[in-house]
């Protein structure tokens, strides 16, 4: 399978196999005009299997989204065909408008202007709760 290398853009590497589509949705990559490659189930020495996403444009990416979905991801920034910067991702303390609270009794269910804010309440198990109603993120 051939996928062109990118000149200026971003490569999300070491995505836990199966999580790339979730990341694609949460990062809003469907709205981009540039080439985006999702490569699933690539052999990996470290993970056994992994996913990779290549974005052929130098766009701002929300690192909190990446850290929420999978803090093991490596973000590679490519400039003029070369690796310019490599970033490891931390688990974010807060998520603002990354995910929505599903609790129908939460104030966010009726007030559309409110930010959906989730706070990391259990780092070990990566559990986030809505700051308003404390419902666990699904």
């Amino acid at each position, binding site marked *: 399978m051939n996928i062109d290398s990118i000149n200026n853009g971003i490569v999300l590497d070491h995505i836990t196999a199966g999580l790339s589509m979730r990341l694609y949705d949460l990062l809003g990559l469907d709205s981009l005009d540039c080439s985006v490659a999702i490569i699933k189930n690539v052999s990996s020495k470290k993970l056994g299997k992994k996913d990779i996403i290549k974005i052929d444009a130098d766009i701002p990416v929300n690192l909190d989204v990446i850290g929420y979905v999978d803090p093991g991801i490596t973000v590679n920034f490519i400039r003029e065909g070369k690796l310019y910067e490599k970033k490891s991702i931390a688990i974010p303390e807060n998520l603002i408008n990354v995910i929505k609270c599903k609790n129908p*009794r*939460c*104030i966010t269910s009726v007030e559309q202007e*409110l930010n959906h804010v989730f706070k990391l309440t259990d780092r070990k198990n990566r559990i986030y709760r*809505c*700051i308003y*109603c404390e419902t666990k993120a699904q």
Partner: protein
Amino acid sequence: MRSLIDILDLSVSEIDDLIKTANDIIDNPKAYSDRCRGKKLATLFFEPSTRTRLSFEAAMYELGGNVIGFSEAQSSSASKGESVADTAKVISCYADIIAMRHPKEGAPLVAAMNATVPVINAGDGGHNHPTQTLADLLTIQREKGSFENLTVGFCGDLKFGRTVHSLICALSRYSGIKVILISPEELKLPSYVKKDVLAKNGIYYEQTQDLESAMPQLDILYMTRVQRERFFNEEDYLRLKDSYILDPRKLKNAKSDLCIMHPLPRVNEISVAVDSDPRACYFKQVLYGKYIRMALILKLLEEAGK
């Protein structure tokens, strides 16, 4: 700006201070009758709650302050579509402190994030009701003298009862607490409360469906209502409802200094015959609720003035 949204917003020593102030108010009411002269409390009740609203209003009047507000959403700008954030900003221009009840969970937090005066959560849906927990704590302190080494029985609807969850959270910070959870299978305490609060704080607990067998060991019995609408079928409700009606016969093996509590309103889960028993503390609990709200209003206004 300091607000009270969740009982855990207050440290153990702050709760101790509030209880100390409330006890002083009970002993010397005259000394406090003018402490809030010129101050206004806004009671923003987006859903009806006669007892809590009147308790806040009585508390403010007894401190010499004034009260403005509304008692249902229909008589507020919410009926015109105003957001909670805007309401909080507007009311901050009129009042020195806000007590808010709202049917949606988290609404008082939104108000606190936008108001320029302290906000007290007076109940947000099935989520938090910290001043009820403060009233419960003052009752326990006055009846038992301390919060340590107590066996506390919670009986009835432990699944949906927010007052039960909050009181368990508050008590879990004290030592020697033993909790007996008495409920039908369908209304057991949610596992996240058992795991995140009881187990995490090393609190010993037992679960049973039998109120009478648990009775002899209890220092406190916290009754709640078993609500018909919580059951999937009428048969289960009818089977279980009478098991949790407290009457003089069920109290036969109880300790002589048992403290019987209930957040009220009561429907039929405590027989009227129990009211004359000196161990019945649920009406005193209502009175203590007013005093602890007085202490809270004083504390928050004092901190806001600094």
